[in-house]
């Protein structure tokens, strides 16, 4: 459906388009105002101070490695899960599919609480905690939180790109001598690459900006489980709005980087 074919229009049509466009103008103006407010209010001295602060450096490092780990884990799960959910129908398919959807509509805070309950109140959880792999109030817990909240985005993205890979391509690969694994690795996976990347970036953005569940599951201990989002809250709650904004700037810079990467990598073929 080519865009840009313009029918002959009278004044009523033009009025209609103008009315519809009004909402775009309103929304975009408001968003630009907000961005401008942030930009104007940035106090570069605070930014420098924040940059040099050891605590915040640690929080940045924590944010980066936890979210990176989450993305890697998510992709490891997303590729086979997306493929299986896309290609095969099995008993319980709809249950698996719904469980993947759950974290997308679930309040993230509930995920944090659920994890807390699981690891502190159930025998299995307590056994895991006691066996030395501690999660509660630990950096590892950050990854777990992020994974549970954000992996669904990677899985869903993988599933829908595998849905779009024509099955006949795999069929041809099978007749040409490939095993199922071969046709997956040499045909479906390369063709689904962009979608998987888009899913990974969405997962990263979600993991990177996570806040609520972390407050519940790992807390916000300076220098231990503090990530950038917790920092913003902590700084702001003691009245350091300039510092909070400076940290937010970091987050935003990274979010923008994500968005641009998606557009560059995927062009139109990558859907958020």
């Amino acid at each position, binding site marked *: 459906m080519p865009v840009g074919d313009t029918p002959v229009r009278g004044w009523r049509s033009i009025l209609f388009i103008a009315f519809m466009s009004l909402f775009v103008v309103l929304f975009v103006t408001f968003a630009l105002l907000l961005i401008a407010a942030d930009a104007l209010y940035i106090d570069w001295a605070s930014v420098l101070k924040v940059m040099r602060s050891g605590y915040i450096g640690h929080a940045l490092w924590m944010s980066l490695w936890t979210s990176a780990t989450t993305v890697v884990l998510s992709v490891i799960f997303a590729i086979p899960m997306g493929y299986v959910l896309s290609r095969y129908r099995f008993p319980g398919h709809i249950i698996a599919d719904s469980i993947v959807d759950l974290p997308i509509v679930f309040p993230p805070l509930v995920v944090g609480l659920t994890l807390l309950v699981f690891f502190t109140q159930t025998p299995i959880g307590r056994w895991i905690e006691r066996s030395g792999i501690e999660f509660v109030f630990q950096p590892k817990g950050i990854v777990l939180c992020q994974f549970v909240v954000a992996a669904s985005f990677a899985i869903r993205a993988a599933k829908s790109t595998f849905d779009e890979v024509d099955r*006949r391509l795999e*069929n041809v690969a099978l*007749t*040409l001598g490939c095993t199922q694994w071969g046709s997956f690795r*040499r045909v479906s996976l390369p*063709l689904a690459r962009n979608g998987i990347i888009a899913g990974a970036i969405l997962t990263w953005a979600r993991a990177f900006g996570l806040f609520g569940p972390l407050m519940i599951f790992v807390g916000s201990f300076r220098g231990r489980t503090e990530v950038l989002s917790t920092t913003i809250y902590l700084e702001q709650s003691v009245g350091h709005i300039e510092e909070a904004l400076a940290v937010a700037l970091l987050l935003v810079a990274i979010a923008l980087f994500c968005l641009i990467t998606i557009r560059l990598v995927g062009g139109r073929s990558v859907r958020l």
Partner: protein
Amino acid sequence: MIRAENITFRAGAFKLQRACLDVRRGEYFVLLGPPGSGKTLFLEALCGLRRLDTGRFFIDGREVTALEPRDRFVGYVPQDYALFTHLTVEGNIRFGLKAQGIDWEEATRRVDEVADQLGIRHLLQRRIPGLSGGERQRVALARALVVRPKVLLLDEPVSALDESTREAICGELRRVHKQFEVATIHVSHHLEEAFSVADRAGLLRNGVFQQIGTLAELLQKPVNTFVAGFMRCQNILSARVVDRHDTAAGVTVAVGRLRFDLPDAPRGDVQMVIRPERIRLLRKEQDRPTGSICFPAGIRNVTDRGVYLRIELDASFPLVAHLSPESAAELPLHPGTDLTIAIRPECVHFIGC
């Protein structure tokens, strides 16, 4: 070469039923049928892409029913070619060789060879998206042929091309078929296309083979009215055998108010098929050719179809004749004119014979 015995399976609401087929070594077989008749499903099952409920497949004398697709050595070109868009033309052709673990030099040699044979050497470094329909088709053929399959399965290989190039590509398919000496099944719903390539053909309808034979057989001796209709025979007439002679004269057949003698016919009420291009028209005063069935008829309507004239006749029953423009030039073809119709007895076919 390819043998299908009682193939039965379901795919959704569709069912392929007890399909039997024999394609001989070096034969070019066309699988005909209207859309949704199960042609593609049959091909996929032969490739091993669908599991059978019952029945057995043999390729080159070996039973392949339980083998995975990769062990059947079939060259499969699905509809719209299903080229790998993430690879170059060369990558597409090389794909099967790589999957079979053939070493790089040997693979390169074979890729170049098949590319030369199909005249796509200059395309090897191109990407798929920029190729034309005909080029894609050649690349898909090369990809299938380079692994030296025992049979070649083409699913609607020319339906994505525009009409003016179809004829040429069909000629090329025949050439490739001869050159690579590979038994071929070509799926199509297009009659003209079938005529331009087929040694033999089979007609599917709702998952059941209706008739298998040469196209001439399907054309002149259809086993039922569906086959006759699919082969675009407009004259399917209800007839009745009214008299059976002991002499050589055979039988007397009644159609409408008309009666004529034929060498033989089945008993009772029958359906009779006469191809429109087999009907000769003569001026009333012309001599009637001996040995032909002749009877008078009036012209009801004439339409010029360019390459032939379609003439609707009334001979106490409706009849359609196709005339070449050259034969038409000698006749007075106005609605209302009375003519003589001449049909050779061997051009009259009874369904079920």
